């Protein structure tokens, strides 16, 4: 089999920063995230023959990565449970994380929601996949993705102690937004 076409190769390279961000969001650990990205690239490369140019390479790569993550996660959990009889504190917030400190409070909250909800909100809310694409990536129904996204939002709002509907003052909101969001707007 010959290597990927220059276009696919270029797409593969361009997807790496997003794959890393997705992996870091899933596992919260830079070293493990990089391992996941590396495994994903190797797996993708060896299966590129079955990939049709013009279809969504990024979605395909994300599928490979999340499948690797979830199978490894299940394996690890079994090991941890075998060793201790219960889940160890290893799953608690991990301090090692790339990225700007400004987002630390948010990332800590994100780590506290269930994996499937975190995956859904990242795919849809951060990476910009459609509900349909996210459902294909996660191997579940569109309705399940929608429900997970809703749960994730609701839980994050709780964890970040965002004001409830009704007592949500616009001043308080815009103040936070102005402080937090200038980076996003540059894009």
């Amino acid at each position, binding site marked *: 089999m010959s*290597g990927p076409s220059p276009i696919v190769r270029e797409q*593969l*390279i361009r997807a*790496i*920063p997003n794959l*890393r*961000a997705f992996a*870091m969001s899933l596992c919260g650990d830079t070293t493990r995230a990089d391992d996941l*990205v*590396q495994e994903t690239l*190797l797996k993708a*490369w060896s*299966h590129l023959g*079955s*990939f*049709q140019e013009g*279809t969504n390479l990024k979605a*395909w790569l994300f*599928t*490979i990565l999340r*499948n*690797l993550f*979830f199978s490894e996660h*299940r394996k690890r*959990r079994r090991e941890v449970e075998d060793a201790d009889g219960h*889940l160890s504190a290893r*799953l608690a917030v991990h301090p090692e994380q790339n*990225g700007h400190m400004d*987002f630390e409070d*948010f*990332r800590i909250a*994100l780590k506290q*929601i*269930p994996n*499937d*909800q975190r995956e859904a909100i*990242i795919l849809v*809310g*951060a*990476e910009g996949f459609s509900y349909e694409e996210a459902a*294909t990536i996660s*191997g579940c129904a569109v309705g*399940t993705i929608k*429900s997970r996204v*809703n*749960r994730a*939002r*609701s*839980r*994050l*709002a709780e964890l*970040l102690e965002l004001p409830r*509907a*009704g007592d*949500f003052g616009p001043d308080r909101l815009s103040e936070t*937004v102005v402080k*937090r*969001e200038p*980076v*996003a707007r540059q894009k």
Partner: protein
Amino acid sequence: MTDNDKKAKTGLGLTSDTTKQPNQSETKKVQTQNNDAPAESAPVPEIDQHIRSHLGRKIKASYDDLVRQPVPDKFLHLLEELDRKENEE
């Protein structure tokens, strides 16, 4: 369904051998692990539209910050290495 769709599906399914979806009991375990997480069927309280968009911007900004992190050279080296191996074959 177009040919492309079919191929995309085949492509997306290729990892299913090592990575099948969690079964029902595993899903339940995950939920007990986060013991304050509601069951999948429990109703979710609606959140205010302003909070939703505020949260949406936060999620995006925090994620984009990760996307902008410099990529270690090892990934490009890996692809070069794969290229090289293929050319040798």
